[in-house]
């Protein structure tokens, strides 16, 4: 699946997007998997209360299922307007 990062999450991880092979069932499982990979992921997700997630471009929460998901995005709380 495609995993996208924006704003300071992107800066901490170092890439805007990557393709990840995963069997993670939920967003939280994917985050756990990424944090175990490398320190930069562990740093980016060290406080998940500061991170928001969208699955297939719909804002959701960390309990959301990844069943059939094509695109997951992680980013800080939005500051539009």
């Amino acid at each position, binding site marked *: 699946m495609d995993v996208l990062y924006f704003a300071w999450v992107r800066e901490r991880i170092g890439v805007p997007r990557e393709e990840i092979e995963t069997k993670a069932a939920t967003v939280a499982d994917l985050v756990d998997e990424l944090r175990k990979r490398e320190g930069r992921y562990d740093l980016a997700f060290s406080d998940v209360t500061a991170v928001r997630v969208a699955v297939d471009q719909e*804002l959701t929460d960390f309990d959301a299922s990844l069943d059939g998901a094509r695109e997951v995005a992680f980013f*800080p709380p939005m*500051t*539009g*307007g």
Partner: protein
Amino acid sequence: MRIAVQAEVFDPGAELTRFATGRTDLGAVVTFHGVVRDLTGDLTGMLIEHYPGMTENALNKVAQEATDRWDLADVLIIHRHGTMAPGDVIMMVATASAHRNAAFEAADYLMDYLKSRAPFWKKERRGDQTDWVASKAEDEAALDRW
């Protein structure tokens, strides 16, 4: 209904004229436009990042929700991304209705949702230093009004 997500500079006055001219079904038009502010006198620029695709979907969805909730004749949302300078226009919202209350309330609702539910992130530059703008708890709390 028109939704535009663009890097290009735009003129809110010209957009308002285009939005509201030549129609006889509008009794009330409300507009808001947001500007890059510099209250400390040292801001040298602002960068706005967004999530192409999701941004357009989120703006369309909130505009549709406003149209379902209030009796609106038309809605306009323009939001820029990319680099801006202090004083530059960032975005605008316009709502049109037969009556003013619907236009005022819908514009207020759109702005509250744009602040914390549309995938934009602001980064301020002061000299050599850049900082992501933190979201405000009051912006999140404002959604409870609706």
